[in-house]
């Protein structure tokens, strides 16, 4: 019998503890930012406080209307806050309400769009070329990103004015062929058949005379690759 009582008492005290903790956490709810048109309990709190201090003489109705707005502005002005009629962190603090401390927000993500953009240009520049030639075109573009003489981002290199014909004539926006996607992945993982080349061109169609002054490293399909 005593044992039973003891057990019941233990259960009761555990329950009490749980309820106590729960209410503790419930207390720890922070106030939300309020502005013209907001409604709810938080608005009531503001209205009540402002009325107690003589800034507000309207009803405590939980609706953030014109009168509340005027009162908040007056309060902000008197307390040296930014006068914007918005009850944010600073204003809540001045009203004596707890505000949520600034904390680090985790779980960052990356888009991983680079592969597709690179594949689009490879596909447009080197369609019909041997697979190795596609990887090589991707590698040249990535070598440019790493080079001091070119823009420092992938988009900067690809969209540099006059750099790539497919960007000028719009063929870069065609969906890339599957080999180009694999080639882009390889190039991004570091495969570089050109050993650091920065230029490539088709000798049959290139008109620009300066290209021949470059040191040609190798030839793949219809393209030559040079430093």
């Amino acid at each position, binding site marked *: 019998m005593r044992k039973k009582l003891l057990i019941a008492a233990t259960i009761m005290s555990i329950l009490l503890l749980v309820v106590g903790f729960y209410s503790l956490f419930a207390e720890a709810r922070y106030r939300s930012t309020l502005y013209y048109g907001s409604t709810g309990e938080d608005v009531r709190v503001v209205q009540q406080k402002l009325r107690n201090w003589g800034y507000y003489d309207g009803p405590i109705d939980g609706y953030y209307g014109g009168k509340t707005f005027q009162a908040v502005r007056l309060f902000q002005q008197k307390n040296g806050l930014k006068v914007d009629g918005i009850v944010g962190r600073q204003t809540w603090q001045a009203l004596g309400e707890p505000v949520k401390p600034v904390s680090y927000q985790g*779980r*960052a993500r990356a888009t991983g769009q680079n592969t597709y953009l690179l594949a689009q240009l490879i596909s447009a520049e080197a369609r019909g070329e041997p697979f190795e030639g596609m990887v090589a075109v991707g590698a040249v573009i990535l070598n440019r990103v790493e080079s*001091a003489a*070119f823009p*420092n981002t992938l988009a900067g290199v690809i969209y*540099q004015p006059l750099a790539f014909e497919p960007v000028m004539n719009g063929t870069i926006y065609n969906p890339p062929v599957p080999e180009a996607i694999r080639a882009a992945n390889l190039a991004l993982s*570091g495969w570089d058949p050109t050993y*650091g080349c920065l230029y490539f061109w088709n000798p049959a169609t290139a008109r620009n005379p300066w290209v021949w002054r470059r040191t040609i490293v*190798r*030839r793949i399909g219809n393209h030559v690759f040079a430093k």
Partner: protein
Amino acid sequence: MRNKLWIVLAGLVVVGSLFGGYQQYTQRQRLENLLNSRYQQAFLNLLEHVEQNQVLLAKILLTSSPKQRTALLSDVWYEANAAQENLNQLPISQPILGHTAKFLTQVGDYSYSLLRQFDLGKPLTDKQLDQITSLHNQMLALTKKLQAIRSLVTDGKVSWVEIKEHGKDKLPKGEIPPGEKTFRDIDQEIMQDQPVLIYDGPFSDHLEMVQPKGLAEKNVSPDEAKSILYDFLDISPEDKNWKMRTNTQSNPGGKIPAYSLKLQATNGKAEIIADVSKKGGHIVWMAINRPFGKPKLKPETAREKAVAFMKKKGFFRVKTSFMKINQYTVTVVLVPLQDDVVLYPDQVKVEVALDNGQVVGYEALGFLMAHHKRDLPEPKVTRDEARKLVNEKFKVQAVNLAVIPLRSGKEVLAWELRGAYGGDTFFIYINALNGNEEQIFQIITNDNGQLAL
């Protein structure tokens, strides 16, 4: 009567097409102006950042206050990068702009390296002051050249779009458009005799002269290279399914001179491409190009296959550093260990197909450039000391020693601390000799695995 109707109709057509044409014309004009304004903005921004830069460099030479010098160098770093970004937006082809772009990048990178040097308590040397003087002089010459065409472009006499598109029709034969001419002059008069700039930064000129450390001594013949590749791929030279083809035209003159070889499947459905180094006969990289079937393997199984593959090639102690999941394959980055120290510079990449687990890609350029038996020093900072050196909010989960490459290409022995901060995973590297925090990586997940940033 009928004639009149035709005349009216023809008149309507003429008026309509005139109207349409005019609409097209104004629309085109607006687009052209819009484009022109972007180029104009880039040019004027460039000029402003270059002018600022010249002034800042002069101030650095004049000041006697170390604090002031730090502030000025940070400004140079910003102004130089901003100038480079605007320069690269001009509609002038890169070969003409290249030297100027490199100059601006190096000025920024150089001042950043000097800031890091100050941080370690080392002041500027006389040689570095000379270096800054010559950079200042070049920046001044560049400023003058840009100022000279400023009035030309701001009063609209020269339009950037015209320079780009119809320069040839509007100018007398053989003459170069003024914008392009200015940049050609800059390239030839100012930038050609750019001094070689060597310092502790990623764009320093010395990094282009790095020689491979991981090649064996012996030179191999083309035939030996072929049998090395057959061995590597586990294909018999007599196998009738594959035909070896050497690309005779190829003459790789890169960092590692190599034979480039190609194996073609006789059924035409696959090809294998690879480079075998002339010195040492190493596989520099290899890729199998074939159609892929639906992924059947789990990435983890693929990773085990990659590790097993490396074991077969004689790498018994490797650690998986990183995995990238592609559409049909997984790329596994493996790093060797030397006495439990992870050698990050010596990484090898193995790509495994997810349909049948075949190794379809291999890349060892980094490994061949960096790998050598290192004389690793004894750490002067202990494991526990390293743990205490990191931010107390960082929850350390694992600690090990590693050799890591710095931005400048140098290597340091460091404690690698893996841990969590606010739900994110980070790696922090503490120099094992002097306790400096050398590097922090945040591991960011996306749909294709994880990225270290």
